[in-house]
């Protein structure tokens, strides 16, 4: 089994079923499924988190959908749909449906948990100082929900990407092709290469989400100091070190040293 050789073979990098093309298909199916799942789960999650209505639905649906056998479901949907649709859509549609069903629960529960888990003190203070309910939602609960929401989306994405390989079973493109075709021709090198490619795509997306998290989630929530803080931290250890665009020569705080160090 010569896996590096397989990757170095120029024939695998050009043409209609080359690595870039299959990665592209894989990402296309995954992307479409993720967008649809977001479109369903986010409004629903915000509504449930906001009103507190339908929490049982979330828990129930999440567990039920997790228990669904992906592969069986795909075959079932294809069999139900294929006779009525002539084109390739007969296979694309069911694949997307299955991937969406897989992705909705983690996004939904992440969103609901995030919104409901927003610091009750902060929510209470906002309410007491005259924030309207929608203002509490958008200015406090949603920003505070981002870390959990994002981890839900990350979860969903990884599931989609790894499961999108089943598309190849119903004759679609994507990285599953290498696995299915390799199995059919007993080409284990190709199968392994396909699996590695899926893993790489998943890893790259994971890194992408980490980066996205850095950008959209407030450092106050992740408790990871913003870059400016960190630089100062290493320069002068201890929580009392100066922070922000203030020169180190700032006068001593009028609050006591005890407060500053506690």
């Amino acid at each position: 089994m010569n896996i590096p050789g397989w990757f170095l073979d120029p024939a695998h990098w050009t043409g209609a079923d080359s690595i870039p093309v299959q990665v592209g298909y894989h990402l296309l199916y995954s992307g479409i499924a993720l967008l649809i799942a977001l479109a369903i789960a986010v409004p629903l999650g915000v509504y449930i988190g906001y009103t507190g209505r339908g929490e049982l639905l979330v828990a129930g649906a999440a567990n039920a959908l997790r228990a669904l056998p992906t592969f069986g479901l795909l075959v079932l949907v294809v069999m139900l749909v294929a006779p009525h649709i002539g084109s390739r859509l007969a296979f694309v549609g069911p694949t997307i449906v299955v991937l969406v069903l897989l992705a909705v629960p983690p996004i939904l529960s992440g969103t609901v948990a995030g919104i409901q888990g927003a610091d009750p003190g902060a929510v209470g203070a906002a309410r007491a100082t005259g924030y309207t309910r929608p203002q509490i939602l958008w200015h406090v609960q949603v920003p505070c929900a981002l870390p959990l929401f994002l981890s839900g989306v990350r979860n969903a994405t990884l599931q989609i990407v790894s499961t999108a390989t089943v598309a190849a079973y119903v004759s679609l493109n994507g990285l599953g092709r290498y696995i299915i075709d390799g199995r059919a021709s007993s080409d284990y090198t190709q199968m392994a290469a396909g699996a590695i490619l899926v893993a790489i795509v998943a890893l790259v997306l994971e890194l992408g989400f980490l980066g996205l998290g850095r950008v959209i989630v407030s450092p106050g929530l992740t408790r990871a100091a913003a870059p400016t803080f960190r630089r100062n931290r290493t320069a002068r250890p201890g929580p009392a070190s100066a922070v922000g665009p203030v020169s180190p020569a700032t006068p001593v705080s009028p609050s006591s040293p005890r407060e500053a160090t506690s």
Partner: protein
Amino acid sequence: MITFEHVSKVYPDGTHAVHDLTFDAPSGRLTVLVGPSGCGKTTSMRMINRLIDPTEGVVSLDGEDTRSVDAIDLRRKIGYVIQSAGLFPHRTVVDNVAALPRLLGAGKKEARADALALLEKVGLDERYALRYPYQLSGGQQQRVGVARALATDPPFLLMDEPFSAVDPVVRTQLQDSFLQLQRDIGKTIVMVTHDIDEALKLGDRVAVFREGGTLAQVATPAELLAHPADPFVADFVGASRGYRALGFVEATATVRLAEEVTVRVGARPADVGGADPSTGSGQRDGWSVVVDDDGAPLGWVDLKATGEVVEERHIDFSGTVARADGSLRDLLDAALSSPTGRGLVAGPDGRLRGSVVADEVLRHLGRGREAEVAS
């Protein structure tokens, strides 16, 4: 002025949280609601900004029935400080303070500039402005909480056990700096606490609640200590009432201070002059007051017990220092805690003014009582 008229709150299960409450919180003053837990003090406060609606009666702000105003508009006129600060964890300190002004349409720049000014006012250095709440200590968070409540400059302020989540030393600092702030801003404040000492220290008026949501007494702290309305209040106000009441009697110029011989660290006992028999003042027993370069007292030193030179390790720091314009309680405490029985008294500038003995404080108190009876 915040007025309660026959206000009651009954929950559907029949619990009387508050029963027929009538009192007012005067403008520009700090009114403290105090009582054991479950006495309805927090419920009463939350009825002011309609977080809870009364079942009966009227709560009005400057004569305006709160029910005639939209709850959101009402709350925007009333600052609110909660126990755990309740800062927005995703916003920096300065943006926490600027949040409500921004929501109400203020420009980012001016809102932040105002926020920085407010942070300075509550005693938080501007180097904390760009930190996130989790990077602050509890005391610092509470300062931010106060600044945030004042951001829109509301005429009223509600405070729900604002200083109870921090340790005693920080609590005292927060209380002192808040008292100073209130002298500046003069808001109409209603504060809830279960701590009678805090109530007596901070309140211009104290409303004592008892179980069942009824009012036991509303009075100034001094009145509360001197004339508790009934055994419940007397018991709640607690022990050592007499001593604590001295905290509300100001020392006047008629308290006689004795002069003390002062030395500095590094002085030689041999060079320090003895007592001056003509005035009866000065070094009577070998004890002198060590002062720093600004003349502020550090503590006592027994010149008979030092070696050639007075060193810092010779100083006895046990005595408290009272301020000449402080209360009789401060003066008495200084005298009682002093190793010489002579309490150190400093002027507003921190410089040593002289010393006072316990007898003199009690004589002064007696003269005050006589004057009170005579008038």
